[in-house]
C-alpha cells in the first residue's frame, strides 16, 4: 500500500491553478480560500498520516449556495474535488489530490434546530458528533453513535463513513440514526433525502449516501434522531484464561437474549499495555478481558448483571468484577478507551486495522494473527468490539526502521484477507479510503465492483468527486454502461415454465 497509485494529476488543471484560485475567491469571498503552501500543510493528510499530499487549493465555504457554485464550477471545467470534514478518517478518505480542490466543510458548524417532541436535531455537517449530544444533554438526551474520535469528528464525516462506536450493537450505526440530509451533487444540484419522517421516499438514496466516503455528493445538512439517556449504566469486567472462553461467553450472553449497550474484548498484549498506562486494575494473567456494559432502568440493569455474571462463571471466568459506582464503571472503561495511546507507549508506531468477522471465528482469527505476527516479526495487540465482531488489531512497528512500515502494511493486509476468508469484511467502521482500496477485489469480483461504480455514475458521471478512493481501478462511465448481452437465444429448457 505504500506504493499507492493515485489518479494521474490533470496537467491542464494544474496549469490553470492561479485562475481557479481567483475564481474560488469570487465564489467564497473573505478568508475562505487558502492557497499558500505553509497554510495548506494543515490539510495535507487526515487520520491516516502515512500519506500526505498538498491539494491544489483549500476552499472553506460557508453557505450551501457556495458549495453548489464550487461544485458546478468544477464539474463544468472537469476539476476534481476532495471533500473533507474534520479530517479524522483512519483510511485516507480525505487525502488531498495534487490537482483537486479540497472542499473543507468545517465552517458549517451550527446546530440549526432541536425538536424534542420529534426527538430530532438538525445540524450542519461540520458540527462534531459530540457537539450534538452536548446540545441536548441538559434535557436528558444524546446522540447514540459514538466513534472514538467523537470529540473531533464531524457529523457530515460520520454520514460519509457510516461511523459506529462501542454502542452500535444495541443502538445502531450512523445509517440507523440519520433521518435526513441535504446534499449537493457534483453538478451543483441541491437535493433533500428524508427529513424528520422515518421512511424516506423512493429509492433509499439516504442509505446509499451513508458510508459512500465522499464519492457521491457533499452533505450540507443532517437530521439525526436523538435518544433519551438510559437511566443507569453498569459494567462487568470479566477475565478469561483463553480467548475461546471469552468468545463463548459473548455468544452465550447474546444467546440468552441479552443485547448489552457495549461489549468489548481485549487480548493479553492490549490488557498489559492498557494496565501499564492507566492502572485500571485489569487482571494481567488473563488471555482475554471482556467489558460488558448494561444500560437501561436500574431494575433491568441489576437483573441482567446477575445473568451475565452467571454466564461468565459458567464459561470459566477467573475474575469478574461488577461496577458499584459510576466512578468504578469509568475506571473499567479507562483502559479500553486508552488502549490506542497505551499501545503507542510500548511501540514507536502502531497501525490500526479494522476488519469484521463472524464472532465465532474469533479464536481462529486470533490464532492466525499470532502466526502472522511471528512470520512478520512484528507484535500485535487486539481490541475487539465483541458484540458486533469488529476487530481492531494494532500492529506494532517502528517507522524509523527502513521497510518496517511496508511490513506492517503487508501484515495488516494479510489480517484483512483472513477476515474475508472466514466470512467477514475488510472494514467495519473506518472505511476503505485509500488504505484498503486495493484489497477490494478480495471481497468483490469485477461485476460487484462495476455495479458499485455504476451507482457512482448516477451521481457523478465524470468521476470528479474524491477519485482514487474506494475503487482500485477507475473505469469510465461510458465503458461501464456498455451492455454485453449473452444468453437468451434459447427459451431455456432448464427453467420450469407455465
Amino acid at each position, binding site marked *: 500500500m505504500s506504493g499507492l497509485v493515485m489518479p494521474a494529476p490533470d496537467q491542464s488543471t494544474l496549469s490553470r491553478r492561479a485562475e481557479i484560485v481567483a475564481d474560488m475567491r469570487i465564489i467564497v469571498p473573505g478568508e475562505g480560500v487558502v492557497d499558500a503552501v505553509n497554510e495548506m500543510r494543515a490539510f495535507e493528510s487526515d487520520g491516516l498520516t502515512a500519506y500526505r499530499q498538498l491539494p491544489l487549493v483549500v476552499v472553506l465555504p460557508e453557505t450551501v449556495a457556495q458549495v453548489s457554485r464550487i461544485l458546478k464550477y468544477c464539474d463544468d471545467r472537469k476539476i476534481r474535488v476532495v471533500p473533507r470534514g474534520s479530517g479524522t478518517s483512519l483510511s485516507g478518505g480525505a487525502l488531498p489530490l495534487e490537482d483537486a480542490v479540497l472542499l473543507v466543510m468545517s465552517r458549517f458548524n451550527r446546530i440549526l434546530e432541536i425538536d424534542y417532541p420529534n426527538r430530532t436535531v438538525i445540524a450542519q455537517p461540520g458540527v462534531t458528533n459530540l457537539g450534538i449530544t452536548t446540545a441536548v444533554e441538559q434535557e436528558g438526551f444524546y446522540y447514540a453513535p459514538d466513534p472514538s474520535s467523537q470529540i473531533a469528528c464531524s457529523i457530515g464525516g460520520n454520514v460519509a463513513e457510516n461511523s459506529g462506536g462501542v454502542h452500535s450493537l444495541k443502538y445502531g450505526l450512523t445509517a440507523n440514526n440519520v433521518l435526513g440530509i441535504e446534499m449537493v451533487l457534483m453538478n451543483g444540484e441541491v*437535493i433533500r433525502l428524508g427529513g424528520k419522517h422515518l421512511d424516506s421516499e423512493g429509492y433509499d438514496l439516504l442509505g446509499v449516501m451513508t458510508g459512500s466516503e465522499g464519492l457521491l455528493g457533499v452533505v450540507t445538512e443532517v437530521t439525526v434522531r436523538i435518544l433519551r439517556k438510559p437511566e443507569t449504566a453498569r459494567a462487568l469486567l470479566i477475565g478469561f484464561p483463553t480467548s475461546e472462553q471469552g468468545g463463548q461467553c459473548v*455468544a452465550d450472553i447474546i444467546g440468552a437474549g441479552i443485547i448489552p449497550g457495549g461489549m468489548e474484548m481485549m487480548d493479553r498484549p492490549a490488557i498489559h499495555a492498557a494496565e501499564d498506562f492507566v492502572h485500571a486494575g485489569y487482571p494481567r494473567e488473563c488471555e482475554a478481558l471482556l467489558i460488558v456494559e448494561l444500560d437501561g432502568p436500574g431494575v433491568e440493569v441489576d437483573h441482567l448483571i446477575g445473568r451475565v455474571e452467571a454466564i461468565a462463571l459458567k464459561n470459566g471466568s477467573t475474575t469478574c468484577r461488577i461496577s458499584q459506582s459510576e466512578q468504578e464503571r469509568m475506571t473499567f472503561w479507562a483502559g479500553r478507551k486508552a488502549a490506542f495511546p497505551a499501545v503507542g507507549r510500548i511501540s514507536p508506531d502502531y497501525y490500526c486495522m479494522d476488519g469484521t468477522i463472524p464472532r465465532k471465528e474469533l479464536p481462529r482469527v486470533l490464532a492466525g494473527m499470532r502466526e502472522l505476527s511471528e512470520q512478520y516479526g512484528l507484535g500485535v495487540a487486539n481490541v475487539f468490539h465483541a458484540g458486533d465482531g469488529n476487530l481492531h488489531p494494532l500492529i506494532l512497528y517502528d517507522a524509523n526502521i527502513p521497510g518496517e512500515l511496508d511490513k506492517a502494511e503487508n501484515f495488516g493486509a494479510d489480517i484483512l484477507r483472513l477476515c474475508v476468508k472466514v*466470512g467477514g*469484511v475488510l472494514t467495519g467502521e473506518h472505511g476503505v479510503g485509500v488504505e484498503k482500496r486495493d484489497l477490494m477485489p478480495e471481497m468483490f469480483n469485477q461485476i460487484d465492483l462495476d455495479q458499485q461504480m455504476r451507482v457512482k455514475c448516477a451521481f457523478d458521471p465524470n468521476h470528479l468527486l474524491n477519485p482514487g478512493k474506494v475503487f482500485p481501478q477507475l473505469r469510465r462511465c461510458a465503458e461501464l454502461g456498455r451492455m454485453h448481452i449473452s444468453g437468451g437465444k434459447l427459451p431455456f429448457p432448464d427453467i*420450469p415454465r*407455465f
Partner: protein
Amino acid sequence: MTTFTPTSPTETLSAVEWALANESPLEILGHGSKRGLGRPLQTEHTLDLSQLTGVTLYEPEELVLSARAGTPLAEIEKLLADHGQELAFEPMDYGPLLGGVAGRGTIGGVLAANLAGPRRLKAGAARDHILGINAVSGRGEAFKSGGRVVKNVTGYDLSKAMAGSWGTLAVLTDVTFKVLPAAETEVTLAIRGLFDEEAAAAMALALGSSEEVSSAAHVPENLVGSIAGGALKGASATLLRVEGFGPSVAFRTKKLIDLLKNAGPIDEISGDASKALWRDIRDCAPFADGTERPVWRVSMAPSQAHAMVMALRMEEATDAFYDWQGGLVWLRMQADPEADLLRRLVRKFGGGHATLVRANHSLRASLAVFEPQLPALAGLSARLKEQFDPKGILNPGRMVPLGKSATLAASNE
C-alpha cells in the same frame, strides 16, 4: 405469456438474460401479496420467485439469517420464534388490507417493499436490518453487496438501495438479515378517550421519557372497534407498548402510568392480547374492510400528523389512525383519493410523503402512487434506475410511469 419459476440463483440469472436479450420486460413476483400496491404493470412475462426458497444460514448466536429471496416470511418467522428470536422490525402484512389472505409474502418482498411495523420508532425498518444481498441486475449480471456481519462499511451499501425499490433495480436472489432476541414480555397501556391532539401530546411525553416505549399508536373512537377483537370499543385508545425483561417491563409500566395518569383513564393489556393488538395496528386492520376505498400511508414528522389530518378533514371526510407516534398516518378516503390536496398538506405540515397503498386499478394507473419527487431528485432516481436496469426490463412503471420520471413541479415546493 411466459412465467419463469427459477429454483436457483443461476436459473434466475438465465431468466433475466433471456428477458434482456429479447428486451421483454418482466414482472418480478414473490407470492404476489403486494401486487395490488403500486402502479399496475403491463408486462407479458413474469418472473415468479416463489420456488427460489430455503434458509441457507441461520446462526442464532451470531444474530444472522440468510435465505433465498422467495422463502416465505411465515417460515422464517416460525424458525426464528422457535429460537426465541425475531425480525425486530416487525414486517407488516399487506394481505388483509389489499383484499388477500394473511400470512403470505416472501423475505425478498420484505426488503423490496422496505416493510416495517409498529416498532419502527425503536427498531427501524427492513433497511435497518439488511446485511447483505445477492441479486441479478437488469443488465443480466449477478452481483452481491454487503455480507453477513453487522458492522460493515466496505463499498457502497447496495443492499439498502434494494430497500423500497419494488423490484425495479434488480431481482433479489438471496438476502441476509440481522435478527434479534424477541422480548421476554410485553405490556400495552391504553389511554382512553383522548382526542387526536391530546394523544399526540401524550405520545410525545411517553416517547421522550426514559421508559423505552417501543411503539405508540392512536386509534380514534370510530375505528377502535376494529382492533383487538372489539375489546376497546367505546372510547379512543392511545396505545403505548413496553417490552423487555419482566422486572424491567413492570417497573417502566408503573413509571409510565405515573407520568400519564392525568391524561385519562389507562387500561393495561399484556401478553398475547397485547401482541394481537399490535398485529392489528401493524396490518392496518381498521381499513381491511374488503373494499377498494382509497387508503393512504403517510410518513411525516410525528408531532405534526394530527394537525395535518385536521386540516384535511376541513375539506374532505377522512378516517385516520396513527402509528409511530404519528409518524405513520393511515388514511381511508370516501371515494376520491384527493392526492393533490393530501400531498399539499403533508408538505405544509413539515414534509414527508404519501403512498396510495390501496386503490382500484384505474386510479393506480392514473395517479402517482408514490410521492412525486422534485426534478433534481427525480432525475437522480431515474439515473440510478438506468444504471441497474438500462433496458427497463424489471417491473417497468411500477414506481413511476414509463418513459418519464414522476416529478413535482419545482414551484410546488
